[in-house]
């Protein structure tokens, strides 16, 4: 049972907690020794492992170059039933069909552009995770930079104006004020 052994922790005091006893991430202490440290590192690696892609082994093409291209295309195609997942990330039925279609088209000799066109013809621009630049998406592409420009411009104008009108030097204290200040300072 490798799994159970991995979870054999040492408490911060160094005593063994026994197999299967889980502690919420105990840090390895010098007492724990090198072997435990290695176990801990293994565990950390497992904890921070990246989520696996939904691409199933049976789908993977024999040709490495084609498979690399398929992955690149798959990353920029949206699964149509999962709002914001690429078809490579989704295990939905439709996503699997789309992955298979991408590989079939690639094997048939289509270019990347052909494959994107193939998908857009069926699902529209929605299928592209990166929307195309055209009249309908102008606000999407230019809205944020435009807003940044406007805000930056306003800031610049405001800064210029405040520099042009320096704050007037305060009037010197009059007799009455000086007497009050002296009284306050004396206290």
């Amino acid at each position, binding site marked *: 049972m490798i799994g159970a052994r991995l979870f054999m922790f040492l408490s911060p005091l160094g005593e063994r907690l026994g197999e299967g006893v889980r502690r919420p991430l105990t840090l390895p202490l010098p007492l724990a020794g090198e072997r435990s440290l290695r176990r801990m590192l293994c565990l950390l690696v497992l904890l921070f492992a990246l989520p696996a892609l939904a691409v199933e082994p049976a789908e993977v093409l024999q040709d490495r170059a084609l498979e690399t291209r398929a992955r690149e295309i798959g990353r920029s195609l949206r699964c149509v039933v999962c709002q914001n997942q690429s078809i490579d990330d989704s295990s939905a039925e*439709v996503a699997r069909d789309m992955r298979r279609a991408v590989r079939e088209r690639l094997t048939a000799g289509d270019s990347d552009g052909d494959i994107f066109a193939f998908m857009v013809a069926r699902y529209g621009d929605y299928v592209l995770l990166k929307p195309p630049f055209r009249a309908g998406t102008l606000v999407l592409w230019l809205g944020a930079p435009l807003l940044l420009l406007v805000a930056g411009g306003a800031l610049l104008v405001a800064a210029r104006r405040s520099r042009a009108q320096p704050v007037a030097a305060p009037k010197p204290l009059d007799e009455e004020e000086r007497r009050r200040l002296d009284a306050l300072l004396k206290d």
Partner: protein
Amino acid sequence: MRRLLFVLPLLTLALMAGFFAWSLTSGRDPASIGSVAAGRPAPKLDLPALRPGDPPLTDADLRTGKPVIVNFFASWCTPCLAEHPLFTRLGEREGAAIVGIAWKNKRDDALPWLKKLGDPYKLAGLDLDGKTGLDWGLSGVPETYLIDGSGIVRRHFRGPITERDLNETILPFLKGAVK
């Protein structure tokens, strides 16, 4: 200038309120993924028949000069169960030509399902691997396409059709009122 700055927050609020009011009342569905099928010729249809002994489905079945309804369904799909009575009504009472396509559904599952609920389909095909579904821009089941006599897709419903769809769109379409 100064007065404009005071009005700016109010203006922003009014703009947002306007957008929200429009979103709530216009019937806009932000989750809708839209469809590019409507207005285009029906995609390729070349499928084996679902019912043993029937001839296979071909493009010619969608170009008969009369409106055709194409419905993708599956026995494992609950919304399909919900919309099924509407298709029964369309087929039996309205005499609509309905083509049913079992999507990712084994024949042994789809046929008993239809036997139990009633079979409203004039023609029925089997798309076991979902390839035809992909060509039709299908995102899942159920989805329904209204195709006119010349083979042009006029409407594409994603999800189950409702009584309202039936009364407001499908029945007028069958009578030739929807273009």
